[in-house]
């Protein structure tokens, strides 16, 4: 692992996200956005690592992130997503949901739309904890247990599910275009189907045993029923939402809360997790079959628990590789990607061969040669 350099930015980073690259271009990602937290003046900032960008200041390493522009943000940035090439949606600790527009010509940011008290208590603010979007639809969840659906460019709210949860909803992700999955602080995964009018989840999954709060969730890019979650105890769980009520595999990942989990968008054999304990892990599973992953079908029907048994049948499909993950079997490799002794890594994002992460030590790390 080549040395990865820290860029100190004078703000604690709560979220980092790559700007999506258009598929036709086949370009490497160049621009990423960050949000800060725990500041008197929080900001969202847009950075570039393009090597063709040269500034007056000799800034040392090629590829050191350069600040392009930033904008004040009211409250901590609890989540940040790119809606499209120019617009960013943020979730704030004041309960507000904001759409910012990045004007590339003038390199400025302006507020495009603001829903000021989307998440709220009767007499207090409720932080909005997570946002996910599939343009033009935006779904947000918060500490008030509400799920709200917005539409960009539409003033009002499209749909609200009141009291969706009696505890805080920490993260949300799309399963299908009309289905979302939320995780909450009593360790449950809930599936919501927007085609139904009722305000109750279509399915509830949880771990038997201790109800550990879950903080992050991500769906497998190709298989819509596989999700990975991470929680307060730092365990990585991979679930199959169609089958059963318990996760297919549990892996001990971190010694403290896991803040984010991401499948690599184009190479789902790779998974990345980051945690409060200051580590960022790169998980790599290897499939034994020579068939390319998209040709492998079939499900592994044997239920496996934490101690994975080799699945019956020779077809080592990609799915079974994740679902029967057991590091001692040598099919799962884990690598630390950061120098030790960093403060909590709050966020990471990976696109192509590039990885960016932000820490509570007010540093951003960019790695442009992730082995995927």
């Amino acid at each position, binding site marked *: 692992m080549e040395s990865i350099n820290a860029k100190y930015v004078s703000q604690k980073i709560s979220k980092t996200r790559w700007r999506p690259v258009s598929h036709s271009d086949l370009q490497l990602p160049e621009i990423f956005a960050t949000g800060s*937290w725990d500041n008197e003046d929080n900001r969202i900032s847009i950075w570039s690592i393009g090597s063709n960008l040269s500034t007056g200041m000799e800034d040392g390493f090629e590829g050191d992130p350069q600040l392009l522009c930033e904008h004040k943000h009211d409250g901590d940035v*609890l989540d940040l997503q790119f809606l499209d090439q120019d617009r960013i949606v943020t979730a704030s*600790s004041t309960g507000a949901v904001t759409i910012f527009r990045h004007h590339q010509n003038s390199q400025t940011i302006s507020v495009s739309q603001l829903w000021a008290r989307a998440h709220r208590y009767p007499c207090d603010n*409720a*932080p909005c904890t997570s946002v996910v979007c599939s343009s033009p639809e935006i779904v947000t969840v918060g500490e008030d247990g509400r799920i709200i659906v917005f539409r960009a460019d539409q003033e009002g709210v499209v749909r609200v599910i009141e009291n969706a949860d009696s505890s*805080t909803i920490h993260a949300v992700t799309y399963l299908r275009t009309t289905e979302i999955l939320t995780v909450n*602080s009593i360790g449950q995964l809930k599936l919501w189907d927007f085609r139904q009018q009722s305000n109750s989840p279509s399915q509830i999954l949880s771990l038997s*045993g201790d109800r550990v709060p879950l903080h992050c969730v991500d769906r497998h890019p190709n298989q819509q029923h596989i999700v990975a979650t991470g929680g307060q105890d730092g365990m990585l769980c991979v679930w199959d939402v169609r089958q059963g009520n318990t996760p297919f595999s549990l892996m001990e990942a971190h010694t403290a809360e896991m803040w984010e989990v991401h499948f690599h968008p184009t190479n789902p054999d790779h998974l990345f997790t980051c945690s409060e304990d200051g580590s960022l892990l790169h998980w790599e599973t290897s499939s034994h079959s020579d068939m390319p992953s998209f040709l492998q079908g079939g499900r592994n029907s044997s239920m496996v628990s934490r101690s994975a048994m080799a699945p019956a049948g020779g077809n080592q499909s990609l799915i079974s590789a994740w679902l029967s993950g057991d590091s001692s079997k040598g099919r799962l490799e884990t690598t630390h990607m950061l120098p030790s*002794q960093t403060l909590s890594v709050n966020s990471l994002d990976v696109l192509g061969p590039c990885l960016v992460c932000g820490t509570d*030590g007010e540093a951003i790390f960019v790695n442009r040669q992730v082995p995927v």
Partner: protein
Amino acid sequence: MGFAWGPGDILVYETLYKASGASGSGCSFIHEIRKDEDIYSPILRKLFNESHHIFVGLQTIREELPSKSKKPQFVSISKNYRSVIRACMEELHFGSFFKFLFYSLVSILLAIELIWNLCEVLFIDAAPAGSLLLHLLDWVRLHKADVDERAREVLQSESPAEHHDYWDVPGGTQTLTEFDVKWRHWHEEVDRCMQDNSFASNRHLEVICKILLGDEDTLLDHKELLGTWYHFLVTRLLFCHPTVKPTELHYYAQSCMTMFLDSRSVSEPLDNILLAAFEFDIHQVIKECSIALNNWWFVAHLTDLLDHCKLLQSHNLHFGSNLREFLLLEYASGLFTHHSLWQLAVDYFDHCPEFGRVYLELQIERVPLETERKALKVLRICEQRQMSEQVRSICKIMAMRALRNNRLGSALSWSIRAKDAAFATLISERFLQDYCAKGTFSDLDLIDNLGPAMLLSDRLTFLGKYREFHKLYGEKRFREAAKLLLSLMTAKIAPQSFWMTLLTDALPLLEQKEVIFTADQTYELMFCLEELTSSLNITASSTDRPMQEEDVEVTKVELLRLALARNLAQAIVKEGTVET
């Protein structure tokens, strides 16, 4: 004006009293005065974060290695610190139009780096005689780059050859004495040339020659070129005593300073600090720096590094801890008042063995918790250090807040984290009250999925089991529902206040066509009813209840008695019947 002290700031407000004249109404503002402005500078924040990283790395160097082999490590750490300072300086320097605002900051950072560099040379690197001068030359050169350029040009314009030999100083193959002899020889030669007036024709050459001889007056004539007295010192040492020993430094330093600064100019704090350094009086250096600077950053980190090099005599202060710990505690306490940098302070407290923990315990509870995520981070810090008191108090704050906003699930998850049975009981009471009021359970997703958390408190267990009863009833599994209901009362899981509700729940089961409760179970139910009514009677006589309520209660009891009796009859008949 009135004021009140805070942990790092002062709150000032106008009172009704004026300094002179009649009292009048003051303005209604409260002003917050920050003691330490520097922490809030965005560029200095980088200094704090990067130096924190270096600090933590320094603490983890293993103790078993002998100090000799650790010296290069310490020197490199010292260089790291200095490069961080320089990086900040450069950024401030290039920081566009805010230059004038940060001018004083840049000069402070320059001074800090100067002092640190000197301390590194004298104390950490502890250069011996010979290489000492080289290091001092580097030191001066680094800080007076532009002046030195010109001076060197003047000095080296003639006689390059001698200079070439001259720079071939220890480090090479010669010992100190060999070099000393050679140097003296060379010096005498130059002196003789001077006396011979061989350079009399060229005035400039004469001046240069005098400088080479280390003539003080000539050097002092070129004060503007030298700039500072320590530059003068090093120059003089270079030309008069190149093999100076560390212990002799302070003689020359004192005399150079006196010569350079005439009676008019007063010595600045920086000069005193440098002089103390030349005198190898580490404590004096630290003391002077503490007084001169308004932020503890410099002294704390420098003292810590020197302490690791075992250069500080342990020297108990009146407050019980040693100097290093005292400074680190002061610095970290200052950091804690910052809305964001408090996280760095935690690591500093961790490495103060005597009082660090106590300080941390007191400070961590005062971190404002606006979001759950922040509370989780603070909790993680407390849990990792086994501060159970703080864990409990933070969880209670968050749980109360959740309860106030009617987020019962959140409240429960906080009380599970703190293993707070009392609070879990409180939450269960809320649920049960809601049920009694509305007739249905709210937040079924929570109660249905309690899992092992149910065992945290008796009331919670009851809640879970009661909900289970309802589920069984809904699924028409009456026998099992009946059994569960009875066990809730006989095993005393249910609080007595709730027994009436439970017995009322039993009514529909008793009224069924099919006999559900067995005779034994019916006897037990009757027993429970009697227990309940007798205790109620005792209380009823003392309390003043309205007539209607009593009527309702009496009717209920009568209905129950009737149903129980009927059920008993049917049960006895059923059990007594022989199946043919």
